[in-house]
């Protein structure tokens, strides 16, 4: 079973000025991390993040920036 080691700082940042609230990131997110609230994307459950960065790639407004979490934190996979 995968583990989650607490991350000190968020590693998904959303530029609310650029976000159009299209919801593509919510559709593409396998961890259900993101939500749309008041027409803008929001990181709601960071500790469910599977660290795939699909959100950054799919964002046509370039509003999402994904960086790796701090070394030794975030998800730890145990199996396939």
């Amino acid at each position, binding site marked *: 079973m995968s583990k989650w080691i607490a991350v000190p700082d968020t590693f998904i940042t959303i530029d609310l000025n650029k976000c159009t609230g299209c919801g593509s990131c919510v559709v593409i997110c*396998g961890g259900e991390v993101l939500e749309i609230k008041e027409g803008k994307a929001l990181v709601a459950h960071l500790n469910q993040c599977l660290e795939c960065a699909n959100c950054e790639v799919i964002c046509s407004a370039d509003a999402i920036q994904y960086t790796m979490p701090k*070394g*030794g934190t975030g998800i730890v*996979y145990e199996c*396939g």
Partner: protein
Amino acid sequence: MIYDVIVVGAGSNGSTAAYFLAKKGFKTLLIEAGGTPGDKCHGATEYCPRVIFHSMPELVDLQLKVIKQIPHLKPGDLGSGNFFYYVNKDNKVVFKSHTVAPGKTGQEESYSLHNCDFVRVLAQETVNAGAQLISGTAVVNIIREGDVIKGVVTEDGQRYKARLTIGADGRVSTIAKKAGLLKKWDPNICSYHYGEAWKFRSEEEMFEYVEHVRHMFFGPTLTPPKPWGACTISLRPGGIITVNAPTAWTPLSSMASAKKNSRRVYIQNLYGIMEVKRMLRPCEGFPDKPYQRQSCFMPGPPLTKPYMAGLVICGDAGGVGSICLPGYKTAQYVAPLLETDDLSDEALSGYTLARGRMSRIIYYNEDKQKSRNNKLTKELSELSETRIVLWSTGAGYMAKYDCSIDEMVENMRLAAVPHVMGVPDPEKCGEFGYVDMGTWLIAVKINHLLKLYGPILQNPKMFPTILKWFQKNEQSFNEKKMFDHPF
């Protein structure tokens, strides 16, 4: 201290590159962001080193050495075979077929194992070969002097210098981005992947419920339309089953435009299929609480310039994902340059073609290969992953006959099966063919392929169910030019 090489990322490619360079005596530093190498490596793979890397005995030896140290399944133990299911728009299986790989390859030479296990042991072998490993430390920047990369900076502010930096830090590549070689991946080309793992109480129990190592489901309820993907169920060591919905053959952009979340829609449809329920029902938590979830994308297209003075980008970080091969090719390419100490932009320019994308490419005609090699290699390195995999999913069949998924299911012909399997049609995909038989063959050269699958292609009796159905319906087909519904 100045290292000869710093490799960023101790995944399968970073570790492999570091292993071969350390073994050659270069002072090698391997830096990994995960607490332990393998922590960030999800997924599981069928490793068949002797088939895929038969021309690279060193790499075969390394892979086998690693594999033998960790728990693995051999499809030979399970009854090797792939099951294919075609699902209609009502989410019902309407047609099934299966294949059995002939010969030794499928039976004895492939190993199903978890990538994280593989990478943990591989990184240990790299350390044993003489590389220095720093784990739990993310690299946040590169050291740039003019147009030359001189090393990296880690999150704790440490600066590590080297003659050559290899960025093997995966698809979210800090190195490629900081060097300005990667702006953003193309969502029309990156393929999407979502998967869940389920656990049986034991391996024995798993074998009781699931026969054969891989089950593949094709159909309109399981993935977005065009290009058509598939969902797969595969057996893994430790009584683990991995379910991929979709398997990584669907572009991110199709997923977004279909507006259906895999976790909520496609994988739930898959679990709704009777055949799937029957297999997975005994798993702990099924169908609400999987043992593990995973998600990723396969990056692409490959970076047009994956190098600059003092730096090369390797594997997924450069959009040429594959297990171990890009790392091996990188080590092969840079070792002579390290010897002569010429790591200029110009000296590294051959890296674009040498970086090891070819594992998935099969040449149709070896004789012609020599003359076409350069041109073809270049063209192929620009092909998207998605386009290549079309041939493995049945989308190649649909393109050829210009039909929809439903029509293909309804009009299943005998000839469709080799297409669905991804066996290349020499007319249509003479230049390349892609095989994801998944279970044991990921990619082989075409002659090797024909040696293995020639008997299947020439002997339709290898598909007993289809043949029976075909014979039963032959007369009606001749009259109506259309097969009756299979069941």
